[in-house]
């Protein structure tokens, strides 16, 4: 499957993806991009120009927190992890997403 264009990502979806990936454990920016790509089998490719502003925005809202640590290649990297507030937010967004996608799927099915 060809990767989706950046614009195809729904507004707010990137935040949800980031929260979900970060929920798996502390991870740096490069790792987040990689994981989204791997898990989506290369369908979703996050542009750095969106990734980093999104990370800092989430951090500012207090949903994720960041600390400097050592990465697998022995370099200093900024690791992000989910805060308690972020965990609630993730749950809420997942719920919203599921309802939304179910609704969209329902419409698509019924209208066939």
């Amino acid at each position, binding site marked *: 499957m060809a990767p989706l264009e950046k614009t195809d990502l729904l507004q707010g979806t990137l935040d949800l993806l980031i929260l979900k990936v970060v929920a798996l454990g502390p991870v*740096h*920016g*490069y790792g987040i*991009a990689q994981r989204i790509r791997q898990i989506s089998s290369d369908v979703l490719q996050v*542009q*750095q*120009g969106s990734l*980093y*502003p999104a990370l*800092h*925005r989430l*951090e*500012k809202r*207090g949903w994720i*927190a*960041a*600390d*400097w640590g050592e*990465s697998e*290649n022995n*370099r*200093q*990297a*900024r690791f992000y992890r989910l*805060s308690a507030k972020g965990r609630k937010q993730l749950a809420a967004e997942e719920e919203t997403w599921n309802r939304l996608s179910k609704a969209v799927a329902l419409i698509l099915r019924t209208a066939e």
Partner: protein
Amino acid sequence: MPSQDQSPRNTSDNIDREIAHHIETLTEANIAQGMSPEEARHQALVEFGGREQVKQSVREVHVSAIAESIAFHLKAALRFLRKSPSFTLAVILTLALGIGANSAVFSAIDAVVLRPLPFPNGDQLVRLDQHDIQGRDANRFVAPVRLEDWNRLNSTFQSISGYYLDDLSETSGPLPEKVTEILVAPRFLETLGISPALGRQFTPAEEHWGGPNAVLISYALWQRRFHGDPDAIGKELHIGSRRGDSFPIVGVMPASFQFPSRDADLWAPSAPDAPFAKRRDATWFTVIGRMKPNISIQQAQADLITVQNQLGKQYAKPDSELTVEATPLKEVIVGGVRSSLWLLYGSVSLLLLIACSNIAALLLARTTEREHEVSIRFSLGASRKAIVVQLLTEVFALAMIGSLVGLLVAAAAARGFHLLAKTLPRAEEISLNWRVAFYSLAAALGTTLLCGLFPALRGTRRGLAHTLAAGSRTQVSARNPLQWALVGVQVTLAVTLLIGAGLLLRSLQQIARVDPGFDPSHVLTFQISGSWGETADMKSLIQHVNRTLDSLRSLPGVVDAATADSLPGVAFLYPLEFKIDGKIEPGHPLLANSRYVSAGYVDTVQIPVLVGEACKPDSTISDILVNRAFVSKYMKSASPVGHVLSEAAYNDFAPKGIIRGIVGDAREQGLNTQPVPTVYSCFSAPIPFPNYLVRTAGDPMAMAETIRRRIHEIDPSRSVYAFAPLQQHLDDASTENRLRTTLLALFAATAVALACIGLYGTLSYLGRLRQREVGVRLALGAMRNQIVARFLAQGLRVAIIGCIAGVALGLALSHFLANMLYGITALDPITYASVVCLILFVAALASLIPAIRAASINPVQVLRDE
């Protein structure tokens, strides 16, 4: 948990490192796929994309939140203010005046009263006076030997020094120039903590008797005579007629050093070991001391009293009769004007409060008009906080502009203060500085909260959202009580200020009515230089002064001439205790002010001789005149002429005197002071540079040049200076009083104007708001004059309540003025009554116009519009 690296610098650093890490990791991944290192890095960079763009958008995430909201609010505020220019201008002007006047007076208070003296650790400096224990002699000047004893024996001072002044003539130029020389005891500069800007201090040898001559010159003299040439050091000045005449300049003092007076030109040592300085009853020095750190002035004074008691055991006469008083040097310098300055500050603060409540009322009225806008915002989901912030930002923008304009006002005022240098100590230190700017900013902030917070909270109350639905018809306003309260506050404060101004004006009026007891018109005053050294040969000094007086009298246009130790009408109190015919009545001290005058004095200033005769050319110091106040207080039964008067104290400077005559009472202590019992000794040369008084036939100042030339003819080594009509000295003596009164009157007038505008504005607004109601009433047959009466009554009711509150506040505050009043008390009923009448009259006028306008509407028109 938030990360620890949130400061902007850290953020920017973080982004850089984070991006670098990403690219490196990408590069490594590429290498692992088999690319060469260069290719791998290049590929990574391409894949990452616009690095700067990423950084910029991350940065925006951090900055935008705060900056955007400030910029947004300010922009919105300015847009809103531009839409109503007349409102904006009115508020800005009011605030500019309010904050400007407030900042100006603050700059004066800050420089004069709050800041320490311009000496290092100026708070350690005190003036030390000696006092006669029984109060028989007001002389506070200290003998050189005693000063040295104090300095040696105390344990609480770093050093003690002193000074006295000589008005001398400097003759190295083409014309003799009058210079004020400060003769200083050892350790003078050390005590003040000041060093010369150029050159050096005095050496110990120069401070001893018989040592080399040396002077330090003031910055002003250096500029005036040497045009700031550094080679002035080492040049010689020819001063007076002492010790070989010539004095090498050893240093130049900094421009800011003007101690003890602005006029100081030279500082020269006065040797404590001079043979003529040995007498313990000499009265020379004004003594200053620098206390050790962490010593209180009480401790220092107690210490010196102990020292003085020891000296009293050693030298029973005169030391056992003396005690010591310490006063902070700052108090000595600024104590006189402090209360005036605080009074002005209090007044401008009241004025600012009035301005604030005026603006608050305006804003409140606008808030009502903006209800619609506010409720739309609410329904669009804005939080109350956001709307309050928006409303406050508008006021703050106004206050900031007002405070900037106000700073210009303050800068102009600072220049004005400099012109008052004669009346206001430390005036030259007043400037527009960051402290004043900061104060002005704080005032703007305070004003914002004071004016804006209440209207903003009021205008955004929860229930307000309903007004959208309710429409604007039911607006017969429930907010009226608040508006009226604000008007009431304005009237109250205006009444208070007006009472203060009224009291000061009334006492000026009382002073103007007073008969001074002498005639200051057509009297010219001046001084001729001389040195205290000349007092060593008293006889020739007296002869010299008498010859000068004779020569002056022979000038055409001169009616009479005289000398005196002080000028009539200028505060000078020198009370001494006397005894009549050698008898002292215990418990009833005979205190009288002592003045020294030459023959011709009472004729020159036209004090009437009631009994006996005045000082004659051949009178001596043992010939005495007393005034009527003295006789009526102390010598009721006896016929005074012929009785012997002598000083009760140890001081034998003035020997026994015989009363030769009685003169009328004159207000020589100042026009605002009742005549006190006074003893005049006939003595033409009490000081080496006495005040000359010349009664002229025509304009006194027109004689100045003739007199200067005559003095130069008979004594070319002396300079003549300080020419001024006697009337001018009287005016100068009351400058502070007149200035304070003028300013307070100005503030009060502004306050009344503001209060009237408040009253007028509120009534007009109310008239508009109640148009429909008035229309209905008129349609139902109400008379127009009834409507006018209703509106008028509403305005007057507030004015009356304001008057009552204002009078109460005035009564409570008036005691601050008590010391500044003459001829009336602080509770003067006439003042209070006239203020109340004036305010009610003005309030009635201010209410009448909007009342008439409100009643003159056409009911048909109004009802149709509805």
